[in-house]
């Protein structure tokens, strides 16, 4: 008896048995959707997150591990709006997994259910790294997460009808806790309304819109371009006319430029988690907003 066919048979059997009652494999591009998928899917999903919270989501490479995980995924949860344009299409093409190609039920884009802000008025690369469809960093506003949760839960139910009731009840539970949390956060963040801030990267559009923060300036001369000394000097001049309370940067960014400005403009430098896991406090979705608000309140005090 030749050993190779037997080996292949054994492999095929193992694969068939594994597929029969496995948890839904979720490939999330960023930690916030990984956390949300886990909240909604419980132990019926197996979540893999493609990026670390300390990684700039714009700059990701189509690493071998990502291709392998996309190959075995049943559902890809992406942000969309071109956030992942530099790597996800390549990963999906190389993985060849037919279930998760754009357009199939196994491909979900969070921005498809959210009205995007910050649509560029001028579509030109001379404006830096602009996102033609609008700002993709929708996780700044928890109300967006609520919208995404509703659609994502539906998608889970569609992909795994056998566990639909389970996903429904998890969604209901999450949704009620989430809405209560939003109400609480909005109350706590009330003093932040109208507070002027400077941002390092224009990645907080939704957070500002939600809490009523006022963005006075950005340290990056154009989105995605490193702050230059001449631009920082301009920002400093702006702050003399229009003072801000704090300068805000994401955990994945170097604080150099922010510290430089904070020191000279005598304002606080606030690091925000930007996503789940960005700071110790932001260990889950709830902690992410709680920590963000606490840090902003400290900055504004």
């Amino acid at each position, binding site marked *: 008896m030749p050993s190779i066919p037997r080996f292949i048979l054994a492999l095929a059997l193992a694969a068939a048995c594994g597929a029969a009652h496995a948890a839904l494999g979720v490939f999330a591009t960023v930690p916030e959707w990984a956390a949300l998928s886990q909240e909604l899917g419980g132990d019926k999903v197996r979540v893999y997150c493609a990026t*670390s919270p300390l990684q700039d989501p714009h700059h990701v490479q189509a*690493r*071998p591990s990502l291709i392998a995980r996309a190959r075995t995924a049943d559902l890809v949860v992406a942000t*969309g709006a071109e956030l992942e344009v*530099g790597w996800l299409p390549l990963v999906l093409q190389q993985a060849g997994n037919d279930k998760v190609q754009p357009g199939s039920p196994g491909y979900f884009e969070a921005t*498809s259910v959210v009205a995007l802000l910050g649509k560029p008025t001028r579509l030109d690369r001379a404006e830096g790294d602009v996102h033609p469809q609008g700002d993709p960093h929708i996780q700044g506003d928890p109300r967006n997460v609520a919208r995404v949760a509703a659609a994502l839960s*539906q998608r889970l139910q569609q992909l795994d009808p056998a566990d639909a009731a389970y996903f429904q009840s998890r969604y209901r539970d999450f949704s009620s806790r989430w809405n209560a949390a939003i109400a609480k956060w909005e109350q706590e963040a009330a003093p932040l309304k109208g507070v002027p801030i400077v941002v390092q990267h224009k990645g907080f559009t939704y957070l500002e819109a939600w809490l009523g923060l006022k963005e006075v300036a950005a340290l990056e001369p154009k989105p995605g371009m490193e702050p230059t000394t001449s631009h920082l000097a301009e920002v400093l001049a702006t702050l003399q006319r229009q003072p801000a309370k704090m300068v805000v940067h994401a955990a994945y960014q*170097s604080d150099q430029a922010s510290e430089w400005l904070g020191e000279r403009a005598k304002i606080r430098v606030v690091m925000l988690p930007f996503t789940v896991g960005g700071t110790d406090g932001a260990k889950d979705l709830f902690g992410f907003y709680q920590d963000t608000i606490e840090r902003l309140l400290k900055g504004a005090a």
Partner: protein
Amino acid sequence: MHRRMLAALAWALALTCGPNAWAASDAELDQIRAQIQDLKRSYEARIKALEERLDAAEAEAAAAKAAAEKAQAAPPPVAQAPAPSAPAAGASPTRGLAAFNPAISAILNGQYANLSQDPNRWRMAGFLQGGDVGPGKRGFSLGESELAFSANVDPLFSGSLIFSITPEDTVSVEEAYGILKGAPFDAVPKFGRFFSGLGYLNEQHNHVWDFTDAPLAYQAFLGGQYQQNGVQLTWVAPTDQYLMLGGEVGNGDAFPGTDRNKNGAGSGVVFARTGGDVGDSHSWLAGVSYLQTGAGSREDTIPDASGNPALVGFSGRSRLWNASFVWKWAPHGDPHYTNFKLQGEYFWRREDGDLEVFPAGAVSSTTAPYTSRQAGGYIQGIYQFMPLWRFGLRYDRLDPGTVDYGANAVFLTPSSFHPERSTAMLDWSPSEFSRVRLQFGQAKVSPGFTDNEWYLQYILSLGAHGAHIF
């Protein structure tokens, strides 16, 4: 009118879909209220978006399609989910017929070269050359400019076309392939003309290379880059450990093979790659591949035993093995501020057949059996020491191995010289779409021939956003 109806519907939905907690406490009622508020907000937003979409649709019937397709390389053929508040509706930059335009990108590539030796005399001692080898032109020259189109063709196929425009004003088709989507077993079949999956660097276009020129081993064994006219099948194993297997058959007309005017496959390639992450900050990729092809009168002019040029033609079988390794480091996986990449490849080649030799001044040729076993490789490291700036070193070395000229040993003597080259480069990339590079290399490719090669190169990319290959 519509608005009110939809709002009523939304309320009805909200009431029926709400949690079944009618005997609820005050706290629970508050929660339900908050939920309904949220639902109301979301439905209002949806209704508003729907109205906007309706307006847009009336204004221009094609706009809806334009928004759905977004004219991108991989547009979803079906609209995303229920997409109630489809944000881009009516606001997409392309409309109508343009909505189906493929993603287009152009690469502008040019250089200034200062070469201490005459590039026409540049050759790797002991190796039969072919394809596109050498340090290029002296002075200012346009590098290879590139024009690329890609799009989904229909639900079954996607396609790519990449032209290369050389400084000599000739246009060549660098790649032109289709990919069959949704193939059985999640395999990815590719057909047409494409860069072979052989080795690591071969599939990458020269504008993404970390150095201006190809490693010596690529020049010696593949004539620069190995292009395949044929079909390729790749398959990624459904395991958490990345394992990719691939195979190709092609007509084999590219160096080290030649067009042999025959039916069937002229060349075959098999390759396997594996890789993964080590912690948050390290990732790696390793591969092995094998190419088998054949040549019929593959011509080259090499110096004979007395240093005069002799025209030679190789006919026979050429087999090439490759092992490659890439290791990347980026703190927490974020390469933005600093990162390091170590990359190395090694080739082994065996050629068996006949060599026809036309010694200088001879009136007839002699043909005798020929065997060669040669090898070579490179290792390079690229360090991004601060945002936008990278520094790199590369070392190339070829092993002339053993060459048996048979009866032609009267005219030709095997070389024992090891061609080598050391290169350093510094590049600056103000954005993802532009790069300026200064490179210096010292190439000792044949005895007594040391070429000091300076390059100043620019690479500008226009149009569609390319993907970052690992």
